[in-house]
């Protein structure tokens, strides 16, 4: 946790004004400066990577994929056959998503994704995972009592809906293709992309109009 925040700008986390720094911040700064001095990494490159993940990628990418799949059946077929190739059609892809398996929710099967061993997640399609996805509680419970976890998170599923929990412990990454919600029939692809949430693409929520 960054401790306090000041009220004079959105980038306050970039300087700590002499307040007590967490030990991780102290060690990270020292390590980065050594790595930079040694030419192993460059701080300029680190700046670029941080801003890429803070500003350029996120669940909006995945939402575009889902909206396209809802409006273009041929794209959806390609997406389910080879997730990464279909995402590349939309200009999406990059490191750490070696292989993307898209799993489709239906009226009878609901998919939800977890990584019980670390927190594997399709970064290039959804951005970095939320803290709850990385939490011990989610990682321990999602495989054993998914129905209860989903209900606690606001998604109550009938017992006749099969819940498939994908524990993504290999290099294959998972994206849930949620059901297109009732009431979304007349919406355009862009309008649909606006209603698709990160949580629906992890499988802990439904898309609502």
């Amino acid at each position, binding site marked *: *946790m*960054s*401790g306090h925040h000041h009220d004079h700008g959105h980038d306050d*986390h*970039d300087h700590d004004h002499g307040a007590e720094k*967490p030990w*991780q*911040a102290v*060690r990270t*700064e*020292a*390590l*980065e400066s*050594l790595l930079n001095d*040694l030419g*192993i*990494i460059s701080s300029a490159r*680190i*700046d670029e*990577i*941080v801003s890429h*993940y*803070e500003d350029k990628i*996120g669940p909006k990418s995945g939402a575009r994929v889902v909206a396209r799949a809802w409006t273009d059946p041929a794209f959806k077929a390609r997406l389910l056959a080879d997730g990464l190739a279909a995402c590349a059609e939309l200009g999406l892809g990059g*490191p750490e998503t*070696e*292989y993307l*398996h898209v799993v489709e929710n239906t009226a009878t099967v609901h998919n939800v994704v977890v990584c*019980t*061993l*670390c*927190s594997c997640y399709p970064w290039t399609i959804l*951005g*970095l995972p*939320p*803290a*709850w996805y*990385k*939490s*011990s*509680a989610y*990682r*321990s419970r999602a*495989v*054993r009592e*998914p*129905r*209860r976890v989903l209900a*606690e*998170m606001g998604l109550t599923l009938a*017992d*006749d809906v*099969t*819940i*498939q*929990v994908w*524990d993504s*412990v*290999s*290099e294959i990454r998972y994206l849930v293709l949620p059901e297109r919600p009732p009431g979304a029939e007349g919406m355009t692809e862009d309008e649909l992309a606006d209603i698709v949430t990160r949580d629906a693409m992890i499988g802990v929520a439904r898309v609502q109009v």
Partner: protein
Amino acid sequence: MNGIHDMGGLHGFGPVTVEPNEPVFHARWEGRVYAITQAMDTTGLYNLDEHRHEIELMDAASYLTDGYYGRWLFAMERILDRKGVVRRAEVDRRIAQDVAGEVAPVEHADRAWPVPSETRIRWGAWRKDVAVAPKFAVGDRVRVRNHQPAGHTRLTHYVRDKVGTVTVVNAQAWVYPDTRAHNTGENLQPVYNVSFSGEEVWGDAAEPNTIVRVDLSEDYLDRETGA
């Protein structure tokens, strides 16, 4: 290894807490640690499975309290120290220098950097240019080996010795994490998605109508005969 990181099915962690309007990074150092680790993938110093295994080697209490990026920081520092690239004592010295406002140049002698091209380690996870012949097909019944190495594995403890059905054959040449983490070979092999019923895995605690689907390297599996 049987570590605290292998969390599937454990009790005692309470409810899932959702933070509204969460930032990508909660502190500047988290973003730096994340990005430095990303940048490491081009240095040839260590691979993804070494990174994961180093995190597993944390003592259990620290694993639970240091946070996600705290674990990454730990892993990076310890790997760089062990490999003689950046030693822990140097980090401590640089911290002391920063506090004292001193500027000291780094010593380049006696350091495992740069990495000679023949000993560079690939970060990434698999390669496509090698053919593999899958041992199992969709629909095959498989039993997960009761494999309990002291080193790294991606075989989650809760499916050991459980029987499931192969549902997806990923017939590409995937590296075998158990050996790659220790730089003892890539052992390229298929990865299968195996479907387990809730009852098979969780017994009398299973919720109705639930399935767990786990990706498993071929070496984790045996064909289940009979029944």
